[in-house]
């Protein structure tokens, strides 16, 4: 491992100044960054520890819920405001990693976690994301965990976050700070598709940091569910996961939110399927139709074609749970 500097930022301002220098990286919980450094995937010259910044609070605002970028995954998942207003987020968080990891992992770090594609992690392998221009090891390799939506001929990796799937479904907004001040991006536009630049995971510009997320208040608390299908019951990344949120009145769907994980380079929001659900009865048939719509444009690779069946099945199941039918 290469020698690097470590500094602790005591103010947001000093953190932003520090990350302006190339080769500098933020460290929060360190649960992803340290692994990447150990494997030689990234080798920063300098780490800026932001854990002492006052960005841990979870507060109710007039229009929603504000969660600081340094709030721990475990704390957010148990927070009473979150449980009461946005139980879907709590469910998504609890489906991720292990209690030990969630005790270290932060909201900002979780949004920024990199793909788990094994070719990305193995520096002896080709990978356009890690080393642009070297090719994609997964495209014709072991791609069982890989994407079926929004892939490019450069990269077929998935974003591994569960939390982000929940936040994407809930219309969250990412709050970002840089030299020029703060800006807000809809969560669904925070992460990118690989396109011709698979090395970029998201739209955070150089020198910017995440300071928090906001979730607008909604009426989904009663009927939401996060369903994660994985190779073991806990501590495994999603084969496919679905965040489903419904507003049901007299058996009719008034409003719906759906997002999928484990299928794309970003949390995959299912806008068309949501639209199709509105006005429909909250029945398995409606859910199945929505799931079919959701699958338009999906494309499988050698080892992940099973997702073409698993994804719609999981959408239907998640909606059934959200509606109280399962």
């Amino acid at each position, binding site marked *: *491992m*290469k020698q690097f500097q470590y500094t602790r930022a005591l103010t947001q301002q000093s953190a932003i100044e520090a990350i302006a220098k190339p080769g500098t990286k933020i460290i929060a919980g360190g649960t992803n960054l340290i692994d990447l450094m150990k494997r030689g995937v990234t080798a920063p010259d300098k780490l800026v520890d932001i854990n002492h910044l006052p960005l841990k609070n979870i507060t109710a605002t007039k229009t929603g819920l504000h969660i600081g970028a340094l709030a721990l995954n475990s704390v957010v998942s148990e927070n009473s405001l979150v449980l009461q207003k946005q139980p879907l987020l709590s469910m998504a968080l609890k489906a991720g990693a292990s209690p030990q990891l969630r005790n270290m992992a932060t909201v900002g770090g979780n949004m920024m976690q990199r793909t788990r594609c094994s070719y990305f992690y193995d520096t002896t392998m080709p990978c356009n994301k890690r080393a642009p221009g070297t090719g994609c090891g997964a495209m014709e390799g072991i791609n069982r965990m890989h994407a079926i939506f929004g892939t490019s001929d450069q990269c077929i990796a998935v974003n591994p976050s569960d939390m982000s799937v929940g936040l994407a479904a809930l219309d969250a907004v990412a709050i970002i700070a840089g030299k020029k001040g703060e800006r807000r991006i809809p969560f669904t536009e925070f992460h990118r598709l690989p396109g011709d630049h698979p090395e970029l995971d998201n739209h955070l510009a150089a020198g910017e940091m995440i300071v928090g997320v906001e979730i607008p208040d909604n009426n989904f608390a009663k009927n939401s569910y996060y369903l994660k299908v994985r190779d073991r019951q806990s501590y495994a*990344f999603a084969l496919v996961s679905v965040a489903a949120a419904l507003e049901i009145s007299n058996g009719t769907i008034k409003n719906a939110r759906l997002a999928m994980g484990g299928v794309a380079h970003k949390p995959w929001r299912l806008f068309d399927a949501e639209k199709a659900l509105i006005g429909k009865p909250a029945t398995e048939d409606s859910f199945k139709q929505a799931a079919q719509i959701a699958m338009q444009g999906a494309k499988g690779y050698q080892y992940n074609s099973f997702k073409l069946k698993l994804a719609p099945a999981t959408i239907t199941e998640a909606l059934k749970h959200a509606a109280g039918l399962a």
Partner: protein
Amino acid sequence: MTKGMSRIDGRLKVTGAARYSAEFTPAGMVYGVLVGSTITKGSIRLIDTKAAERAPGVLKVITWLNSPKIAGYQVEHGKPEPAKGTYKLFYNNKILFNGQPIAVVVADSFERALFAASLVKAQYNADPHHTNLRDNAAKAFAPEGDGTTKRGTEDAWKTAPVKLEQEYIIPSEVHSPMELHAIIAKWDAEDKLTVWTKTQGVQDTRDGIAGIFKLPKENIQVNSKFVGGAFGSALQVWPHEVAAILAAKAVKRPVKLLLGRADMFTSVGYRPYTWQKIGIGATADGKLVGITHEAIGQTSTYEDFNEGPIGVSRSTYACPNVNTIYKLAALDIGSPTWMRGPGEATGAFALESALDELSYELKIDPIELRMKNYASTDPESGKPFSSKFLDEAYKLGAEGINWKDRNAKPASVTKDGWMVGYGMGGGMFGAYRDKAAAKAILMADGTLIIQTAVSDIGPGTGTAMVTIAAGVMGIPADKIRFDMGDSSLPLAPSQGGSATTATVGSAVYQACTDLKEKFQKLIGNGGTDHPDYAAILKQHSLPKLEVTVESSGGTERDKYAFYSWSVHFIKVLVHPATGVVKVDRAVCVADSGSIVSPKTARSQIVGGAIGGIGMALMEETVIDHRYGNIVNNNFADYHVPVNADIPQIEALFVNKPDPHINPMGAKGMGEIALIGMAAAVANAVYNATGKRVRELPITPDKLVGMDLELS
């Protein structure tokens, strides 16, 4: 709560006071880190170690170019290099598998050694490689030893009125013990060596090192008091151990070498990927007519690893016609090795699945089918079994799981949206008894010390030995000290093949019996069954009294066939939409003679069952055959079961002594705890869904692809 003694080392283990191989610090110790080959086959063209040698704290970089000659590797002058043998570290520039060590870097700290290792750069001449068994099955050859056999008529199953032929595949699995392999090597003199290493047998490791380095055995001291699981991965001297010993000599300081988790996939063996085909036929009323069991297992190019997965088909059921064909495919991968239930675990997945398939064809209950073909004498040798109460085990297990709740029609039961199914599968494994010695010393203060060189890789050997000694001597367990894991102690074989309790336990039993007799003699005629040992010593002005005995099986081994038996009963829930399988209940029954130490026996069964569930549902080493490297060489991607995957496992024991094996009547149970489990799960999945998964592991993708629905 199970009765019996709790682990004697439990407190040491949970408080961190137990010291494992990597946790010693002899004065002046430095650190070795291995560099692995990034190609799969070929040769090293150039290896540049300059940057590593210049890196801070580096003492030495050893490669094939500068490695001291290892005496045991050398071929006698004029003789050709043998085609096969064990892998020889730094012997030449040949690359035989991905991850093969090409250098060891020694530095004054682990971090510095690790960093310097990343600076070693090799250039290779790569040759085309072969790592895929399926593509290379045609080139498979029959190994020496157990393999192609025939009893009765060949392929007789084909003549049976009810028959089937199916293929079964198990992927390669890695042992994945929690404790990583580690060694500390310290040369005490030019030809005297002490090592602390993870091993299942300190004396076998000593003898192995003696052979490789051509040292007198008595000059080598091997210590391994605590082992954090091994499952067969520590039954031989591995290249990393040779590297540490070599490096320690080169730098004239003790060297510690710890494998990383990724190394655990390439450096200490694995269960080989195996393709099997079973043809099985029966009469309409369920009498077996014939079994043909064919298998091709993977091995390396430099060693023939023969684990005999077809043996189960010869000895499990009373079947007149059995023929087996076993071949090895030599691939450009490191050698496989023994892994819990070696051979039988693989074979039983095929046989016990096939029997289940046959039961549905015949419309006969799977237990009834097994009872109709119950072997009362060993069908292979014709000898009587030393003991066999498998029929009782079936009953116990069937009651335990409520077998009567099973619906014989597959895919017909659901509960809360999940498909429900029951399955069973059995296991068998030879009940061995080797030679071992033990020393029993009664001290002036009344403490009993038992010494033998055995290792305890986790089953609770110390606890079992103390239980045996306490029983014979009538001394409370807390007054007994058990010394082990030290090669200078009395003879003991490696812990493997489920033979430790039967073998070493017999020596302990005998030593204590003889010691007690010595005391009885001292007292003379008025002896009691519970003598006050300390008082007798005092009375006779003796500081202590000791005996050393050697014990082994005798002619009984010629007269009887010795086996332990198990049967596993499983209830699964399968989600029809997502293909997720949950093991809802597991009842495992062992017929392994007397249970010496009930608590640790129970945890043996539970541990084996968990290993079996892992084998059934998630474990699989995945190779990218384009490169020949393992892509899931870490615990995030290679899945072993976590708590959420495991229900309460009920361990039941027939607990009837085997009258022939040894004085305790105890047979082994380490292997049978796992053997048959994977089939039991697969059979339950079939009962739940009507879909048969013949290639492990049974992951959601496979079931989703089969379109599950109620029949």
